[in-house]
């Protein structure tokens, strides 16, 4: 798997920095980040990343709605939910919305790397 270009969506600047650092540690790069679900679609359209990490709980539009919007226009988008929300119902809702994976915060590099590999291997076109 080559170096993938990521978009990170999270309303916390600290979490964006942490995810960026982890992605770079495991050999990927972050080409853009944004803090709202509404911006996610705009940025996705502009940057066309290989993969997206998406928070669920954000102030304007939640990550599940943002995922649905991106996928309605870019059906091959690879989106991994990276969230603290551990309720099973939320995992199901995220997958139903089209997310390809789900990782619980606090994020560990090995789990993130495993999930990226799983998603890439399963969905690469």
């Amino acid at each position, binding site marked *: 798997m080559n170096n993938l270009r990521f978009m990170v969506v999270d*309303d*916390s*600047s*600290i*979490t964006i*920095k*942490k995810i960026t*650092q982890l992605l770079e540690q495991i050999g990927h790069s972050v080409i853009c980040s944004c803090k709202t679900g509404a911006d996610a679609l705009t940025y996705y359209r502009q940057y066309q990343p290989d993969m997206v990490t998406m928070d669920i*709980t*954000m*102030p304007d539009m939640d990550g599940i709605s943002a995922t649905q919007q991106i996928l309605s226009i870019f059906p091959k988008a690879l989106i991994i939910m990276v*969230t*603290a*929300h*551990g*309720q*099973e*119902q*939320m995992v199901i*809702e995220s997958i139903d919305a089209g997310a390809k994976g789900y990782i*619980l*915060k*606090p994020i560990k590099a090995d789990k993130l790397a495993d999930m990226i590999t799983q998603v890439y291997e399963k969905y690469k076109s």
Partner: protein
Amino acid sequence: MVEAQFNFPDLIDKLSSRMVAFLNTELDIANIDSVLASNTLQKMQLNYLTSLISLEGSVKMFVALSYDESLFNEVFVRYTAELTLEDDEQEESMIDSAGDIVNIIVGNTLADINDNNKKITMSPPIVITAAKQIGCRRNSLVYRTHLITQYGVVDVYLIDCLIQDRL
């Protein structure tokens, strides 16, 4: 009765355990003493910085973590230890760190709750500084666990709002 579906004393225990585990495993702050929770409070006595999230499912409730200054400063340093922060990012970073941590504690705790498979939504976190107390209406129940570390204290609050807008 909606309140019969939710075990609030159990929930404050789970929240407190998650907080202790987070301090211990993520921030390497060990030897934490926990003082028994109370459900007889009518107000929250806030410390230096408080982060708060509301939850809505079959019931509505609030969870808050209220740190004293010395502990929060230590938590912030450890939480951001591997990151490069510019001077003009410090204030936002402190707010975001406090929000991240309450988000993680509450969100992870939801994995332990079986609320008849009903979705529980979390609000984005709110961080409060320079406030001293929040009063609650008469019928609200305020649960608190007081966690004591070598760097200071953090109070874990769970406010059970039996009727919306009680807080």
